[in-house]
């Protein structure tokens, strides 16, 4: 017979104030299997835990039930307690009578029977608890970093500096990401490229870092410590080993298309490097626009390439790498500001977005750093910066704050005032958010030192009148309708999750929120981990943030990876799926349901009526399985179970609750 000990916690008055703990104790003594019932003021306290250890020894308990707070709070604590008394920690079970009972009820008369229900359900489950043991797996000491913007570069360098190999993956022709497009960074106004490009070079030259640009993530299989990742290396059209990066091909290429890097403010060629400091300094061929691929003729680049590096026949190739951990740093997209019909983007050429402004103001940009109106290439004398275009807008954009726009728009206004001494800069804002070191000071400088004019009010409409752009708004601080005439408008678009974020998430079996931002395991306590062990997040792919926060998060993710890779082996959670081979029919309908590809067919041999036969059954990879239990429902045989949440245990809880809570009926 099992010997169950029940420990009822008062939690001071938290529980005892609403639940008659003594009465519950009295009733609990009658439960089958229960041989010991004890009340404690604070079961989680040192004496409380000591009482459990003592009772286990004195009463030879083999199951322990604590009725106190949420298992999410103290399950681990009590498991350790039980283990310290020599009992398997999984013989422990918890009844949540605080969060789920005493705290949400006021009437002792009804709360007490409910508390007892919770206790006896826990006892019924505990009677069916089994001894479980943790497994262990070896760890592949190599990391993959997806995305080589500032987040990815930082994470890769940190991990590589700690002595681990890193594979850095980037789908664009160069690393650097969004930060490479920026001119200056707030609040220090140091040059973005000046601080970024050295890191790019470091990453490229680091002996522990292997760089794959113009490459995409194809598939992720495996589990923490043992991922197998397939990478698609897109055809570059250029033999990277032969190419010297001299740039002759792009200067000779006759095709001009709008440059993605310049956000359409400048042009590039069909064979191109996005910008002069690109890393690696190797061009890619844009087949969609290349004359040869369109007409079968041209090949001018090939003719002029002295290194003979041009490859028109190159094809995509797939490579497979093994890694122990993955950092996802896939960045963000920008809100399409044309969704605001009232703002005239696309209708009026001098209404641009903030990233376009970055390119205009950038010394290495298409205008060599001169702020010029796209319409007539004149220098605008007045510019309005409109915040929250797409942010904080439930009707046309997203509900959240994009967090960096206030600061960079102030920076833009300062830059404009700096370059156009007699110009007027207006910032239309609703709230200026400056929660960072030296941010508020930066805001003040803009207003005081640079004369930037801040108008509190969301413009309602932008239209053209007499060759000027007019912003119709309310100055909400005055409570008066206003019209502001300017020559250029810069809209600060919301930061959005990558449009293929869902696909990326699904490839890696991690979750994402309603906007497509990848979900951290816990917003406060596990901010860089995902719910899939071994996969970490850095940068805006997890949610809008600025450069300092991005870099901090990247280093945090890197430190998690370094911590993981510093072990040879790691323990695995035992509350995962297991198959009863005797019951399994081998239909394998469980397999497609598993989100972790943890189920495979396995051939076993057994004796059936004296004959040795072999047959297929499902087998669970304990490294991959996360214990969700979806497979158990697909299993009609009842062969699949989740340790710790077995069918038997869950049914026992239902039966215990309902079987006896009603007066027993007489037999038929």
């Amino acid at each position, binding site marked *: 017979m099992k010997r169950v000990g029940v420990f009822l916690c008062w939690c001071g008055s938290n529980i005892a104030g609403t639940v008659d703990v003594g009465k519950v104790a009295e009733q609990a003594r009658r439960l089958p299997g229960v041989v010991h019932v004890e009340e404690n003021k604070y079961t989680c306290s040192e004496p409380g835990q000591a009482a459990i250890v003592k009772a286990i020894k004195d009463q030879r308990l083999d199951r322990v039930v604590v009725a106190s707070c949420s298992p999410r709070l103290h399950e681990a604590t009590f498991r350790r307690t039980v283990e310290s008394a020599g009992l398997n920690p999984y013989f422990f079970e918890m009844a949540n009578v605080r969060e789920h009972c005493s705290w949400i009820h006021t009437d002792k008369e009804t709360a007490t029977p409910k508390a007892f229900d919770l206790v006896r359900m826990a006892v019924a489950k505990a009677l069916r608890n089994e001894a479980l043991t943790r497994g262990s797996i070896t760890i592949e000491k190599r990391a993959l970093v997806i995305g080589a913007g500032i987040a990815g570069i930082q994470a890769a360098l940190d991990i590589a500096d700690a002595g681990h190999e890193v594979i850095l993956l980037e789908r664009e022709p160069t690393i650097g990401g969004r930060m490479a497009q920026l001119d200056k960074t707030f609040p220090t106004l140091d040059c973005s490229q000046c601080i970024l490009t050295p890191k790019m070079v470091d990453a490229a030259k680091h002996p522990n870092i292997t760089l794959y640009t113009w490459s995409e993530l194809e598939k992720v299989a495996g589990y923490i410590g043992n991922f197998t990742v397939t990478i698609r290396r897109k055809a570059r059209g250029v033999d990277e080993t032969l190419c010297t990066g001299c740039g002759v091909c792009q200067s000779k290429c006759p095709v001009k298309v709008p440059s993605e890097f310049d956000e359409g403010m400048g042009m590039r060629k069909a064979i191109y490097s996005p910008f002069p400091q690109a890393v690696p300094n190797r061009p890619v061929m844009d087949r969609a626009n290349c004359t040869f691929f369109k007409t079968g003729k041209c090949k001018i680049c090939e003719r002029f390439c002295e290194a003979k590096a041009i490859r028109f026949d190159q094809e995509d190739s797939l490579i497979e790498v093994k890694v122990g951990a993955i950092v996802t740093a896939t960045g963000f997209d920008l809100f399409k500001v044309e969704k*605001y*019909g*009232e703002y005239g983007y696309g*209708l009026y050429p001098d209404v641009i977005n903030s990233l376009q402004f970055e390119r205009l103001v950038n010394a290495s940009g298409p205008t060599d750093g001169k702020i010029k109106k796209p319409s007539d290439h004149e220098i605008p004398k007045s510019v309005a910066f409109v915040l929250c275009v797409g942010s904080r807008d439930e009707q046309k954009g997203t509900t959240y704050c994009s967090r960096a726009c206030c600061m960079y728009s102030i920076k833009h206004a300062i830059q404009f005032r700096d370059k156009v001494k007699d110009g007027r800069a207006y910032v239309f804002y609703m709230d200026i958010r400056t929660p960072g070191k030296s941010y508020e000071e930066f805001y003040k400088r803009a207003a005081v030192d640079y004369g930037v004019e801040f108008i509190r009010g969301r413009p309602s*409409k932008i*239209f*053209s*009148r*007499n060759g000027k752009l007019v912003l119709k708004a309310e100055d909400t601080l005055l409570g008066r309708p206003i019209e502001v005439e300017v020559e250029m408008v810069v809209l600060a678009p919301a930061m959005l999750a990558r449009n293929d974020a869902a696909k990326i998430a699904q490839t890696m079996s991690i979750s994402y929120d309603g906007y497509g931002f990848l979900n951290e395991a816990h917003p406060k306590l596990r901010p860089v981990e995902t719910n899939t062990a071994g996969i970490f997040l850095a940068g805006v792919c997890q949610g809008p943030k600025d450069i300092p926060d991005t870099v901090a998060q990247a280093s945090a993710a890197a430190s998690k990876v370094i911590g993981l890779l510093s072990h040879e082996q790691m323990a695995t959670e035992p509350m995962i799926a297991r198959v009863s081979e005797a019951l399994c029919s081998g239909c394998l309908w469980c397999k497609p349901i598993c989100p972790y590809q943890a189920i495979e067919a396995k051939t076993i041999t057994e004796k059936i009526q004296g004959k040795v036969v072999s047959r297929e059954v499902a087998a669970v990879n304990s490294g991959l399985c996360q214990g969700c239990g979806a497979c158990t429902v697909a299993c009609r045989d009842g062969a699949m179970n989740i340790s710790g949440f077995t069918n038997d245990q869950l049914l026992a809880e239902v039966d215990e609750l309902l079987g006896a809570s009603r007066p027993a009926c007489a037999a038929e």
Partner: protein
Amino acid sequence: MSGQSVRYSYYPGCSLHSTAREYNVSVRAVAQAAGVELVEVPDWNCCGATSAHATDPFLAFALPARVLLQAEESGLDILAPCAACYGRLMTAKEEAHRRPDLVARFEKAIGRKLGPAPRILNVLEFLAEPKVTETIAAGLKRPLTDLKVAPYYGCLLVRPSKVTHFDDAERPTSMDKILASVGATPVDFPGKTECCGASLGISRVDLVVELSGRIVQQAKHAGAEAIAVACPLCQTNLDGRQGTAAAKLGEAFGLPIYYITELVALALGVAPGRLGLGKHLTNSLALLRQKKLA
């Protein structure tokens, strides 16, 4: 859609029987040219307009609901050329799903059951119906070449878009397309969807003069020679108030305000004399004569 159906229920609303008689004429003229029969909703009543929904939530639903009920029997799609009527009917149709309480009160008061509402078309949707576009495509008798027209949508056709589900609320294009299809040159202008003052036409003349004036001014500055509208209230305001506004602004406008159906009818060869263009307060025949269209 209604490729074979050539009959529509027709809800002219009060205006088309009074202040906007010429609108009624031109709608019917276009319908006739396209071989479409318009069957007037039997014994229709006023939709209640702004006055009802501004002051009386039940009537705001009940009046247009009765119109829908009257139209129900024929089972035909309803054409409501007045933008205000259209807005009220669409709102009532939407509320019939969302507000069982209103429906119950309505049915109890009137002693009849409200069935599923038919499709409701505004005049721009009507002009985009296959039967009409086919007619236009089949041959324009009198293309409006060189006529620069500013399409004015006003409010109620495109707003609130959750009710009308029609075109883009900020940058609509449906009337632009119709104008282009009859050979005219649509002129984009910022006032496209600004409000003309609508129901304040009688009670706050000062405001209407201000709003209508701005719209006409913007159209004029954008190079338009005329404005096309799809609503009798818009027409009355822009047409009737532009003189006062011009005086106030110190400019001369003289911009004819055509119903879009008048322009389409003209292009389809309907004689200008049949359209009652003379009813407009701002001279609308002179421009046509100048362009040799009349």
